[in-house]
């Protein structure tokens, strides 16, 4: 199975050739990248984690759905068996649908960051399983497609990546401009210090959702768009690569990255 199968043109470039290969060989283990980790079982993605994305524990406890102790007890009692998700349902703490909705949200959120471009070397540790256990595995190709779609969606909404990483500075609404309910909740936390990711953690919302909402706010003029492109936002390519030319050949860089990943 290749990532490009059946995709419309434009999103065929694999986000991670290694992920495609591992899916093809139905591998089980952990795919470690700079910005996060994907967990595979039989080539399907069962979990993802990223320091940028609030985990399922944050999503469930921050909004008050689950007391922190309830979560910790589940991890204590079922973590070693890698069945925390199952335990949360079987012990009546969560319903199946809630767990699946929340877990999928966290999975695609973390995968978006884990698969961010220029994410450095990729390693795979065979046989490693995550303690959350299987909830609702998704195909590697759907994770890749969604990750690419999300990147394009951000730029479609407001093509200024600098707002993703800069502290969020709210602007006064124009006379007569409406601010929606969810926007208000975000803007209340825009204190000029918190970044979009920090706001996501504070609210217990997926980080990508917050990036997207902040881009929408910036497009509406309700949040400042920083002048400087955030060049140093995410570690991308080694300096010697980018300094070769002011206009780097994307295809060349992709091949270079693929070759590097393939050799690992």
């Amino acid at each position: 199975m290749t990532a490009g199968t059946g995709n419309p043109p434009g999103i065929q470039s694999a986000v991670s050739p290694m992920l495609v290969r591992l899916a093809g060989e139905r591998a089980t283990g952990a795919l470690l990248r700079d910005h996060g980790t994907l967990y595979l079982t039989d080539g399907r993605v069962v979990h993802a984690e990223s320091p940028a994305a609030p985990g399922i524990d944050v999503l469930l406890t921050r909004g008050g759905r689950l007391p922190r102790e309830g979560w910790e007890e589940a991890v204590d009692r079922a973590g070693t068996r890698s069945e925390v998700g199952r335990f949360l349902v079987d012990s009546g703490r969560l319903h199946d649908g809630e767990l699946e909705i929340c877990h999928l949200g966290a999975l695609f959120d973390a995968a978006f960051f884990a698969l961010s471009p220029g994410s450095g070397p990729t390693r795979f540790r065979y046989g490693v399983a995550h303690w959350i256990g299987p909830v609702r595995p998704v195909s590697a190709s759907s994770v890749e497609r969604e990750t690419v779609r999300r990147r394009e969606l951000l730029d479609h909404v407001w093509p200024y990546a600098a707002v993703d990483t800069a502290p969020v500075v709210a602007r006064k609404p124009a006379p007569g401009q409406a601010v929606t309910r969810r926007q208000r909740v975000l803007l209340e936390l825009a204190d000029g210090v918190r970044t979009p990711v920090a706001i996501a953690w504070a609210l217990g919302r997926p980080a990508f959702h917050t990036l997207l909402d902040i881009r929408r706010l910036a497009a509406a003029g309700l949040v400042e768009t920083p002048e400087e492109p955030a060049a140093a936002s995410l570690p991308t390519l080694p300096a010697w690569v980018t300094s070769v030319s002011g206009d780097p050949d994307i295809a060349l860089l992709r091949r270079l990255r693929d070759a590097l990943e393939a050799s690992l």
Partner: protein
Amino acid sequence: MPGIDACLEEAMTLPGALGAAIVDWTSGLALGTAGQSPNGDHEATAAETAELARAAAEYSAFAPPARPPTPAPASRPDGPVPATAPGPRPAPGTATGSAATPAPGSDGDKGPPVEDLIVTTRTGYHILSFVETTFDSSVFLHLWLDRRTGNLALARIRLGQLAERLVLG
């Protein structure tokens, strides 16, 4: 207490059901799909319906004017409860008790003020039924019905029930 797949499966048993999906309306992600999609691509459909749902959930025209001073539940106020639900069902927002009053720091209910959307086309009906979760989420059920064989009133009620059972068990 159905999970995503069981919920979609049940939605597909409704008369005239052509396709169903569970979609996140902030991101446009399809969390699960069943049956066909109107344009042959469930993911593209999800992205489009999400935009519609987001607009409805966010526009002030569809928001309650202000929080009523009475403690009466403001959500899902409509009429008779179908026979499948024993007794008056609790409003989702009040199910945990603590959510009955506006949370400090935010302005009230987390769920969108809109229950569902219905789009009628020449050949079909689309029902988008919002799922209200007790954690911060933005999810709806989308059911696509054949216009000749579908029963809009029944499907709307059933989909609302499914949306509740998906998270309340």
